[in-house]
């Protein structure tokens, strides 16, 4: 239940924040300038949030540099500056365990064939770590074998990887399979090209995870229902097995897939606060605000409260018909760049002295 979870989560959050303040001059400064003391935190909503954009401009590491085993770098959608997320061994392990727990709730505990609707290069460790990479790597922990259903042409275009698709149909159609892809790639590349080629992949009711937003699909007037129906037919699965999930590189280890009732559930090691954009106070149930994702997974960076640039709303607490407990919410939209009009719009001709 949410109340009991918060009772467990709160002391953990406070302890981790104290650790962050002790180990990071940047985080210490952030708290000191706001005259904020972790011991004053009375509820999870009291925790000072860090805007997600700050991962682009500051080293938010909270562990010694020598403990960092990996730094996730991801490009945002709004600027070309990369976010940097430093991970120590304990954090990596926590993230894997967390993801396993979440996925087990949707896939069970058995390893399966993993089909990626993307090209193999997306998982190349030498290349940039994007949200697509994070999705593939994160979800691959349940894979006994991974296949990439697309390939990248020399000009950068994605096309069907037909030999692999044929191999899947011939050898693995009756096996337990799960699928991951970015929503717009599934629709604009995979679905469109499969349709043009009159192919279908008749699999054994696979679970399809997809992520990455609906903006591009909405502009083509593709609703979530239509998307689910078409992809379900193409891959041979029930529409409730098509799970749109929400997540971000800065909170790797936590994903929020849709339950059969279309709600996103908050796992035990995390919380979600919806903040009114103006008052910055916690919104009431069904009020839309900015999504803040809290977690206790990291000892290597400030993950305890990250304010995203997405909006959503809490649907309810502890009473989703799917049976999962805790808060459940829905994603509403990304916050788009402000469209300013009039004589006061941005100052582009600047001289620095």
């Amino acid at each position: 239940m949410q109340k009991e979870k918060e009772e467990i989560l709160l002391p953990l959050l406070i302890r981790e924040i104290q650790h962050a303040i002790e180990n990071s001059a940047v985080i210490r400064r952030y708290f000191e300038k706001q005259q904020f003391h972790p011991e004053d935190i009375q509820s999870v909503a009291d925790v000072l949030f860090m805007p997600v954009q700050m991962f682009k401009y500051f080293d938010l590491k909270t562990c010694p540099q020598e403990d960092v085993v990996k730094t996730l770098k991801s490009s945002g959608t709004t600027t070309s500056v990369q976010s940097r997320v430093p991970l120590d061994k304990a954090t990596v392990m926590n993230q894997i365990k967390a993801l396993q727990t979440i996925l087990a709730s949707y896939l069970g505990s058995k390893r399966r064939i993993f089909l990626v609707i993307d090209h193999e290069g997306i998982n190349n460790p030498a290349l940039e770590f994007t949200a697509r990479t994070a999705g593939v790597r994160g979800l691959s922990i349940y894979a006994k074998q991974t296949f990439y259903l697309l390939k990248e042409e020399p000009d950068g275009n994605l096309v069907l990887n037909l030999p692999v698709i044929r191999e899947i149909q011939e050898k693995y159609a009756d096996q337990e399979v799960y699928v991951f892809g970015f929503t717009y790639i599934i629709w604009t590349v995979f679905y469109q090209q499969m349709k043009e080629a009159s192919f279908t992949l008749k699999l054994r009711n696979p679970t399809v995870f997809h992520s990455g937003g609906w903006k591009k699909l909405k502009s083509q007037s593709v609703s979530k229902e239509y998307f689910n129906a078409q992809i379900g037919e193409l891959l041979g699965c029930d529409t409730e097995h098509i799970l749109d999930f929400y997540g971000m590189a800065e909170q790797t280890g936590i994903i929020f897939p849709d339950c059969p009732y279309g709600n996103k559930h908050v796992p035990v090691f995390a919380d979600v606060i919806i903040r009114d954009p103006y008052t910055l106070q916690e919104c009431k149930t069904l009020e839309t605000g900015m999504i803040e994702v809290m977690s206790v997974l990291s000892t290597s960076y400030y993950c305890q409260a990250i304010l995203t640039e997405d909006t959503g709303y809490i649907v309810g607490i502890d009473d989703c018909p799917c049976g999962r407990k805790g808060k459940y919410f829905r994603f509403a939209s990304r916050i788009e760049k402000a469209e300013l009009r009039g004589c006061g719009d941005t100052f582009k001709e600047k001289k620095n002295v």
Partner: protein
Amino acid sequence: MYKCYLSEGSFAEKDVVDLNAIVDRLNIARADLYRLPLPVIIEFLSKLGKRIILDGSKFQKEGISYIGMWLRKQNLEEICRINYTNLDITDQYVEIKPHVQMMAQPRGIICHWIAANIPSLGIFSLVLGLLSKNASLVKIPPENVDLVCWILKKLQDISVTWDAAEYSGNILVKTIALVSFPGKDVGLSSAFSSVADCRIIYGGGEAIASISRIPTRETCETIIYGPKYSFGIFDQDFIESKDMEQAVSRCVSDVVTFNQMACSSPHVYFFEKSKKSLREIGEMFAAAFAGVPDALLHQETPTAIIAGIINKRAYYLLSQEKDAIFPQHAGWTILLDRTVSLEEPVFGKTVFLKEVESLDPVAACVTRKVQAITLCITDEEKRRTYAKQLAYNGADRIVLPGTSNEYDQPWDGILSLSRMVRWTIIKENKRSKSC
């Protein structure tokens, strides 16, 4: 298709395919306006101002009381005097040198492209149209129609008696047509532009660029009020003077007015190093913001702007050499640092306060995109010398705290009325005069 909110003195909303009928009626109506002496027009407008002040509570946030004040007879006469030099010049020929007389003739139909950032902008622009005896075809943002129509209905009800003749406000209102249409519709925009004898374009960079490219008549005058930036400068003496507290309060008023969306809204204040620390000055601003009435302080702000505010606050808190002061809500934000730069505006009543060793490098920041500079220098001679430098570098207006948003003439470096008329002359026969 155009949506028309006002034409021929009727406020009935209707769809219009072709502007020609509206233009024909405007041309008839402007002949009546032309015959009105300028003092009569000014009398109408000053009466309107008084009515607005008495009954404007509905539009407090939109700056209605300022419109009422701006429509004072004395102010309108001043605007005309600055632009025309002589107040008779729109009514009759006025001698400018021996045997040569000059008269300002209206250009005809002014097409106004009104930006949405300032709700009352349409009214200011329309008044200039009336003072130059032109008819006005206005592309108005639909969200501002209520305010503009509310004011024009008041004008319609006013009557003025002059030289024993009574005139109705409808003569003025009939010279105005309000329409809206999608600016991206090339056909509608081109047709709108093609009927203009004068175009007044208000807008951001993109809007100005695209509207300026729309073809128009060879004889058409185009007046552009593009994107501009405003800020303030304080010298040491002023900061340490007794005037400082009131000046800060007035600066905050400048920031709050128009929800910091105007080109005259300050975004940055520079402070020469003084006995007062930057933090102390920041606290003075914070106290002034805290005293702003809720209706003005808590105005609708897009979520994207708030996200920008949240990011800037965090950036300044995380940076070593910077600091931030703000309340729990996103209503106002003060950002403190020592970088000499005109920062990209964040909006939402966000001000950058900067301490500088000397004021010289600040003048070097000024470009032609700078509109108003609130200049607080105690020594008047020093202030004028520095102001000349700022103006040479590009600033249009050097103002005092609390006056940044006053809609002065010239504005953006332009004497608008003088460009809304054609300057015509008549030469007299020297011999006949001497006889």
